[in-house]
């Protein structure tokens, strides 16, 4: 019983995270001794200068990459002991993503892109759900358009629809406004937070925009691979 409570309360727990990569000038530590706990339903901004390691941290917390030291648990599951196969299954069940460069599949229409998570789960109602999410992001009329026929803001809205179509417990967003102008970025952030509030998703957002960070419940600053307390 207590374990279920912990799961529901703690979305992410990282202890002593390290990431060291070999370079031509020897070992380079990108992350060092990161301890972090994020509760379910919390919204957290990770901020820091370029090259501070914030994107690497996001990748490790989301189970896209493995740390070279320490441990990280997502929804109560220790990621470092799992293989890529098992981590992918956890991503399918728990995680949604929004990326700076949108990462839509160019050969698929907006609708087909949003349907992908449902199709990967094998949902029969994937198309119905996808139409609903596209309505929510205001693109109900453009379901048949390909990414290259959409503006940057529209592409990011498709990406957000796709992220929520994953029905995630944790949503990771990597500089979601980084490729957009200020006004469009503002509308995207509004949309992201509105959907987040509606679905009570845990939101972990990498940004170097202070105004975006300010809208999160908690801001974590990272500098040269370490958390600034």
């Amino acid at each position, binding site marked *: 019983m207590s374990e279920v409570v912990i799961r529901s309360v703690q979305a992410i727990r990282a202890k002593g995270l390290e990431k060291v990569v070999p370079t031509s000038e020897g070992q380079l530590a990108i992350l060092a001794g990161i301890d972090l706990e994020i509760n379910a339903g919390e919204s957290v901004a990770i901020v820091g200068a370029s090259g501070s390691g914030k994107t690497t941290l996001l990748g490790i917390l989301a189970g896209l990459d493995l740390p070279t030291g320490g441990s990280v648990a997502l929804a109560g599951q220790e990621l470092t002991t799992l293989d890529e196969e098992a981590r992918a299954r956890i991503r*399918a069940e728990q995680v949604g993503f929004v990326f700076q460069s949108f990462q839509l599949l160019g050969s698929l229409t907006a609708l087909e892109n949003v349907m992908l998570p449902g199709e990967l789960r094998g949902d029969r109602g994937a198309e119905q759900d996808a139409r609903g999410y596209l309505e929510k992001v205001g693109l109900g009329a453009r379901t048949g358009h390909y990414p290259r026929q959409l503006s940057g803001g529209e592409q990011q809205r498709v990406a957000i629809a796709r992220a929520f179509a994953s029905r995630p417990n944790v949503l990771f967003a990597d500089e979601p406004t980084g490729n957009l102008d200020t006004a469009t970025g503002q509308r995207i952030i509004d949309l992201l937070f509105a959907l987040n509030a509606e679905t009570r998703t845990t939101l972990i957002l990498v940004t170097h925009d202070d105004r975006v960070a300010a809208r999160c419940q908690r801001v974590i600053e990272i500098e040269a691979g370490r958390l600034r307390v």
Partner: protein
Amino acid sequence: MSPRLILRLAWRDWRSGELGLLLVALVVAITSVTAVALLVDRLQRALLSESADFLAADRYIGGSQPIPEAFRVAATARGIDHVDTLSFPSMVFADGERSQLVSIKAVGEGYPLRGRLIAADEPFAPGRPADGVPAEGEVWLDARLFPALGVALGDEIEVGVARFRIGRVLVSEPDRGGSMFDLGPRLLMRVEDVARTEVVQPGSRIAYRLLLRGPDATLEALRAELDPEPTWRWRGIRESSPSIGAALDRAERFLLLGGLLGVLLAGVAVALSAHRYASRHYDHVAILKTLGATPGSILRGFLMLLSLVGAVSVVLGLLAGTGAHLAMVAVLSTIVPVELPMPSLRPFLLGAVTGFICAVAFAVPPLLHLYRISPMRVIRRDLGAAPASQVLSYAAAAAGSLGLLVWYTGSLALTLWTLAGSFVVLGVFGLLALLLLRGGRLAGMQAGSGWRLALAGLQRRRRENVAQILIFGLAIMLLLILVLLRTALLDQWRGQLPADAPNHFVMNVVPEQVEPLSALLAAETTWRGEIFPMIRGRIVAANGIDARDWERDRAVSAEDDDGPRMRSERNLTWAATMPAANEIVRGAWWAPDDTRALVSLEADYAANLALDVGDRLRFDIAGQEVEAEIANIRRLDWESMQPNFFIIFSPGVLEDYPATYLTSFHLAPERKRFLNELLSAFPTVTVIEVDALIRQIQSIVARVTQAIELVLGLVLAAGCLVLVASIQASRDGRLQEHALLRTLGGSRRLIAGALAAEFAILGLFAGIVAVVGAELSAAVLTRQVFSLGVALHPWLWLWGPLAGALLVLVVGLAGTRRLVDTPPMLILRGL
């Protein structure tokens, strides 16, 4: 991923054209292999059945013992057509007291099972196909027997104790070619009449044959059931007529080599397009992985996709291959009448399995890269595939090619030589290509003229371009090898039988006739002036060991048509100088002043009897024993149509023995009647006509030549496909760069010029690489596989690089033209 999702992804890939090139490459691979295999299969069958005419059957069982009735019963039971023939020498007598040694062939009703019996109603007249065989009580005679015996059609002659009416003039029977020197003039009669003559007694030298006709598989089953060896021998065309067998073997090897190169080229095209497909899906897969697709399901998904593409390609490829084959046959039949037998299932199986192996060996490795793509790639674009998998992909491609080629050709040697040639060329010429590209560096990096832009671009993408030069080079090289081999083969065949090659032999010339006969031949025919003495004799001992024991203990193959080989009577000759078309393998030809008793042996003959230089042979010649030491071993060209001897003595050993002489001459078909004059002047000599045999060989060579040129055309098509696939594979990088240049203000003309120059330079370099590789490989292949002479080809060094430049230029521009016209924004956004 569920099958439904995979189908949807496949459909979307297809709609966006992503799968198209892979599908086309696989379809073309299967199409070309199927079409080549069908052609080879049907031509081989046609050639074999045409050459079966030389046996008058598909197979025969032969020997010096009567054929057991059980053999006929077994053949009948299997539905195999069969007919008996008996051959033996005998004297025939005409009423005018004239007699002549003839070679009698007695045949049953239904003879010949293959080919036609040609007969005429007047001596030395051109014949027509005969409807049947001689009736019982009737014989057909060779034209030259009429003047020799002083008889005419309708007269009677005696064979043994029986009398026969002369029914027709025998012009030729299909299986006469065999061992021409044992033939006297031919007398054809019915096998049912043989007993009546009483000439066949126990101990008579008779060659019994049971001719067989039926499907290959049934014949082989019969062979397994009867197991006639060693008392009787089982023979097909390859064993019984070495000259035709050799021509067939070479043609078959060439056709297979053509098919083999087609497979290699198609494999390269498949690998290139699969690689492009995979690299365009790196992001795709990374995104799917962030969405929770597991590596296992992605691998399964892409393998299922590949299986689907493979299955569709096999169906399309087999259909297209059959269509292409039918089109080729249709084209061929407008030039010459072609009758081809139905194909076996093998070509279709070959096509399908080739498609499957191409997909697995060439397309799976690039797709395996996708398995390892890190989902982190969605955040960090620079993460590519793990480097170890590249080793895997080369290893798989090499193993796939090897397996495919060995299976396809059934010849490890041919495969290994081709592959070794290709790999050496890849290694050495990768370096050469790099140096060639380096040479372009000095031309400058500034965008301004198309040429400079092209050189700069080539230099910038050096690694890709080296790879591309090698791929172009390999394709062009394989094509050049085929062209060179074709030329060498055809030259060799044409050179083998010059127009004035001897087509008649004269035997049994007595010493007093040598001078007048030489004068007559010199005046009336194309005669080379060579006349050889001939003495019958046999080996009785080697190194003091009785020939019987020597043969039993050491000989490799002890028997042939004439019975025991070592002890059988042979034609011996002597010569002061080595006859033309002979070549010493070991030892040396004797000096003019050498007075020892020396002997020279033919290489295969010596090898079969385990004899070598220095061994001493004792001969029985006309009842006297002569001993001689083996001075040398010769190789001779059996296909030269010159008189050839297994055994030649040095001068001074045989001169005192009674000899007859042998010579050969060429007679044009329209001068055939000269034979009448010759035989009237020298009634005792024997003339053997081999012009029909030569014409048959020439018609086979012509047929094979057509087949070779058709296959060459097909492989050329496969080579062009590789060029297209390779250009497609490198299109993205090249176009992105040029789109960028256009946004920076480069004119359309400049970009098109730069592309053209780039392709021309790539083609030129590839041509240079290809010429060097082709010369080396062709030299090795002609020597090792086709046993032909090696020659360099200066014309190739000029035309190879020029043709390469032109070919790559045309194919390259055709493949990129549309994109030069597309607005740059679309290219930049679409990639």
